[in-house]
């Protein structure tokens, strides 16, 4: 039983990270109907920027916690700029092109960003400075560390802030209007370009926060780390119903838990026929099943409140 609980904890933490990244996909999709495959790379850049900034500050003698926060702020700012630039350079010129074109551009941007990161940060693995003393707790047989608690809390707070923004502010209202019908929204005086840019910038900021969380959790970073993470988060977004904010959050957490339980029990369930290295297939099996039986995702796509 304590193993089961531990796997749930593992899955919950992993799932919170998926959820944060999935929000970036779902926001952009909700507004533009575009899947921004370069989003995983934005997360990666967020992690690497934090490492550089925090690492430099720590070397300069700043307290670790302050340096960590500064690194995170820097990452958020850099990623917001990156998200804006991506939209401006790669997607805006193609806004009226066939749907396939921006998709291919997105994949291209993902490769470009990976290689840029490889040139800037090199091929080696980078270690993420540990911000927190290694505190661990036991609760009902499950073992967890301070960073895991923080990841879940920060994710929840960030998601809460996003919901407030979308449902309680003027910008959020403009976003929802654009999602419903861009042409009509622009007739009503909504600046579509600005709203779309804002969606990219906010999505990228969430990605940066996720990047810092991933870095702090695994204490390791690499220029290719964004690819798989992005793919999983995209799956989470589809699972929850792409375009739907709450769906992305729940989809992410659900996917994390499915993966952890799957990896933990697949060997026993199949009598050793499938081993735990099939962990990654769960995400994609889930994706296929959802697409077959409920193409609109678990929480449907109520076009009314996508953001």
């Amino acid at each position, binding site marked *: 039983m304590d193993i089961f609980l531990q*796997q749930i904890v593992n899955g919950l933490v992993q799932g919170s990270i998926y959820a944060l990244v999935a929000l970036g996909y779902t926001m952009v999709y909700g507004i533009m109907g575009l899947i921004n495959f370069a989003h995983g790379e934005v997360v990666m850049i967020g992690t690497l920027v934090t490492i550089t900034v925090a690492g430099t500050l720590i070397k300069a003698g700043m307290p670790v916690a302050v340096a960590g926060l500064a690194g995170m702020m820097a990452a958020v700012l850099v990623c917001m700029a990156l998200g804006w630039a991506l939209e401006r350079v790669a997607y805006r010129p193609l806004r009226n092109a066939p749907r396939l074109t921006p998709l291919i551009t997105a994949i291209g941007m993902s490769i470009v960003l990976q290689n840029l990161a490889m040139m800037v940060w090199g*091929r080696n693995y980078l270690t993420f400075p540990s911000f927190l003393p290694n505190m661990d707790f036991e609760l009902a047989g499950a073992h967890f560390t301070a960073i895991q608690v923080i990841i879940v809390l920060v994710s929840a707070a960030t998601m809460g802030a996003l919901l407030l923004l979308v449902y309680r502010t003027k910008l959020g209202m403009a976003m929802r209007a654009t999602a419903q019908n861009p042409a009509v929204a622009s007739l009503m005086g909504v600046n579509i370009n600005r709203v779309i840019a804002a969606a990219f910038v906010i999505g990228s900021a969430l990605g940066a926060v996720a990047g810092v969380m991933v870095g702090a959790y*695994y204490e390791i970073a690499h220029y*290719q780390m964004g690819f798989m993470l992005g793919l999983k988060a995209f799956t989470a977004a589809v699972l929850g119903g792409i375009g739907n904010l709450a769906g992305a959050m729940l989809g992410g957490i659900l996917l994390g838990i499915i993966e952890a339980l799957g990896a*933990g029990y697949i060997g026993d369930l199949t009598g050793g026929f499938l*081993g*735990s*290295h099939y*962990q990654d297939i769960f995400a994609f099996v889930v994706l296929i099943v959802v697409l077959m039986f409920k193409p609109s995702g678990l929480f449907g796509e109520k076009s009314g409140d996508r953001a």
Partner: protein
Amino acid sequence: MQARLSVIALSVATVFALSACGPKEEPKPVAAAPDAKPEVVVKLGHVAPMTGPQAHLGKDNENGAVLAIEELNAQGMEIGGAKVKFELINEDDGADPKQGAIVAQKLVDAKVNGVIGHLNSGTTIPASKMYFDAGIPQVSGSATNPKYTQQGFKTAFRVMANDIQQGLALGEFAAKQGVKTVAIVDDRTAYGQGLADEFKKAAEAAGIKVVATEYTTDKATDFKAILTKIKSTKAELIFFGGMDAQGGPLAKQAKQLGVKALFLGGDGVCTPEFMKLGGEAAEGNYCSLPGSPLEKLANGPAFKEKFTKRFNAEIQLYAPYVYDAVWVVAEAMKRADSVEPAKYLAEIGKTKRDGVTAQIAFDEFGDLKGGAISMYKYTDGKLEYVETLGGGAVATAGSEVKEAVAEVKDAAKAVAGAATAVGKEAVSDVKDAAKAAAEAGKDAVKAGAEAVKNAADATKAAVDKK
């Protein structure tokens, strides 16, 4: 799986071969033409992952090769009356068997004179078939899976002990630490799986109980799920068959989960990178490397100095082995007085080189003769040398075999005494016999023991004759 891989490799190769038959191909004779050209270009292919999770190791390999090539060119070797200029053609296989076959075909089409690599067993094995078909000699500095040289390809060599030897040494070492239960994790690559399997055999033979077998991939970053399972088995040791990029985080996450087991791994995790990634969790644990430590070998420290000076980087892992591999090929060309693969191939097998990693000589399969395995401990962020475990082929199965092997060893010693008169050949013959004997012993303890005894008798008889 292996068969399927090579089928894929073949079909990829065919497609590639077809597309490569375009009109632009201009056959460049690279053979030594003493009267016509004063300078001959020798193209050596080098393959390692330059992208992906193992890119840092690939770069390290490349550095080793570049250093050797630069030295060779500075030295101005003359072959067949012409001055030779070595040229390195670098290819990236991304540690992916499919990609490995594609770049192998590319090198075959480019008519390289020899191939250094690949880095991973998983890419080396399918590629070796293509080099064999094209008659191109291949020397790998790091592919340790036994299969590589067991396919009967005359063109395949390696300058590093294989995983049978390493697995045995690791199993033996684990038993010596007094470990009773072990959990084995491998990354399902040809290398990781092969090493883990050999370790498992050796560990079980030494009386260690395998309480969990878990798998991951060579791209994974999250190991919490499998570690949670391992924790519940209360294993005293976690053995990892795989590379540093997974091993480091695995050790770290084990610590975060409160797993108290020791960590043990092979050459793939015996790197500075592992300690960087594993942090405190690496401390006090052990890993093994084929060969002896650079410091213990005559040419080792000089190499280390040269390398650091040239690249301003620490040696990661296989650079010295790759450096040796390049020299092995160049020296074989020199001895054969030809850069043509068909002519100098035979000379590679006769190599006797005082390398930076070992005394390099090959057996009839292209494996390194008497490859020793050294154990290291992660101490204060450094790899501290612990001990070197023999030729790797000793003390494996039951005590009976051990006794029998001891007999063989005595015989070997006797021969060694006589060797001053007979010559060094005899020693290596006996060593091979011992190796073969211990191999046999592994399969069935009792039958093996007899076989070893027979072998020992045979050896003695041979000694008497000499």
